């Protein structure tokens, strides 16, 4: 589904991504781990079009996507969340969910004014879907609260909800469970796993919790100083000397 070839990204003399190649197959969950500053979020930013690459190629569903603006990449079905959750503060939780819905009618002034019946039908359908997702994410009682008033963990949940509303083919999650309480974290992992199994979506997840990783990931990629140092099943990674030295020794 996603193929990255020899990706390069430099900030001045710092090689944030140094010749990274990797692949995320259809309907599978791949974890991305590495110490702080190893280039994980940079990789997401380049893949999703927020940063320009300095070299290499990115293919999504066989199509080259590097160089496209972020919104075009999202429209192709590759969607991301942010490490520091973004939530329009003066919009309610439910508005946030509706904002993300795919194939909306009334997103331009003309149809918003003159196709009101069709707009209302599409809004109703999206509303039902949004409420079901909020229920799953335990945000239902907060539906009419401003997103700006949510806690950090709740914002993480909301960003997951928004991404699910969008129905992409592949989802990049940047630390989806940071700041989420342990009970909900387990449920979240189950939700991701369920979504992957039911709707055959691919996930690429940055995560620091080894527990989450070994629970849901089919495969793990390890970055250190912008280079891929290892790749394999969660069990293999936990045995890998290099990885232990770079990353897990401190934990």
């Amino acid at each position, binding site marked *: 589904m996603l193929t990255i070839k020899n990706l390069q990204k430099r900030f001045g003399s710092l090689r944030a991504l140094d010749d990274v190649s990797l692949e995320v197959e259809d309907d599978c969950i791949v974890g991305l781990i590495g110490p702080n500053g190893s280039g994980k979020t940079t990789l997401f930013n380049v893949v999703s*079009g927020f940063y320009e690459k300095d070299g290499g190629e990115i293919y999504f569903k066989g199509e080259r996507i590097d160089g496209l603006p972020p919104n075009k990449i999202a429209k192709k079905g590759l969607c991301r969340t942010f490490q520091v959750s973004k*939530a*329009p503060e003066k919009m309610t939780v439910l*508005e946030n969910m509706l904002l993300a819905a795919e194939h909306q009618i009334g997103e331009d002034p003309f149809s918003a004014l003159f196709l009101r019946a069709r*707009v209302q039908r599409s809004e109703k359908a999206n509303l039902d879907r949004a409420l079901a997702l909020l229920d799953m994410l335990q945000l239902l009682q907060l539906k*009419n609260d401003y997103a700006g008033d949510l806690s950090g963990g709740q914002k993480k949940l909301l960003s997951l909800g928004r991404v699910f509303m969008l129905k992409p083919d592949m989802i990049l999650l940047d630390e989806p469970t940071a700041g989420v309480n342990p009970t909900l974290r387990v449920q979240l992992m189950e939700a991701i796993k369920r979504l992957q199994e039911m709707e055959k979506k691919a996930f690429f997840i940055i995560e620091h919790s080894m527990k989450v990783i070994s629970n849901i990931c089919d495969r793990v990629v390890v970055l250190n100083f912008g280079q891929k140092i290892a790749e394999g099943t969660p069990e293999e990674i936990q045995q890998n000397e290099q990885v232990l030295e770079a990353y897990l020794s401190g934990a």
Partner: protein
Amino acid sequence: MAVINFVIYLSTMIGIYSLLAMSLNFQVGITGLINFGQVAFFCIGAYTSSLLVVNAGIPVVVAFLAAMALSGVFGYIMSIPTKSLKSDYWAIATLASGEIVRLVALNEGWLTAGPFGVMGIPQILKDFISKDAYPVFYLLFVMACIIIVYFFLDKLTNSPFGRNLKAIRDEEELCLSLGKDTQKLKLQAMVVAGMVAGLAGAVFAFYIQFISPENFQPIETFLMWAMIIVGGRGNFMGAIAGAVVIQLFNVSTRFLGNYVPLGSDSMAALRMTIIGVLIILFLLYRPEGLIKEKKKVYD
């Protein structure tokens, strides 16, 4: 009688500025586009409509539509630099575009009669309405414009389109990550706002029947900003409330000069000082303005 005439004049001016403030609110309060060149739309609307009628003899209705269309086109042009300029730098560019439009009106004498302005703008439907009733008729016409514009802007704001605009205001990168073409949305917002302000320009020109570049100084933009700061951003009732408060200060103190022992220069300076203090007080003690943005609640 003089008092009644004055109240009608004041109300009409409040109405015209309400249209301008609603347009500015659509840009600033809803979309988060900091436009310091709002007066450009006003100027284009006024000049387009009056020149078409006075010089080309085109029917007033067509002239009004042309004024809206040309201001909308100018909104489109103004939105282009949002692609490459961050919001604060774009704001400075808009300040310049407001001045450019005024200076074109001032210097392109073959088209605009330059500093002499456009004179002899006819009154709409003059033959059908008695001279005494005309001011009231025009006030009603302005109010009708406000109701129609309010209806459309409110519908737009509460549609998926408006939701996208609010999301751009609050968190533009998120919009991009959700596949929204934010550039196109800003463009559409600027065209809509431009059309509304262009209408206000046409309504203004046919009310005072004489326009010159003097009417479109940058200070007009700042008055409109004062309106949305005082009235409240993100809702159109706030824009109207702000227009009422600021115009009451702005217009009524002009006539206070007759009763206060101050020269007209001092009075003009004092007027702006009062409005400045009002802006500061609101920003400090009531930053959300007189009327707060309404939360959209689903049950």
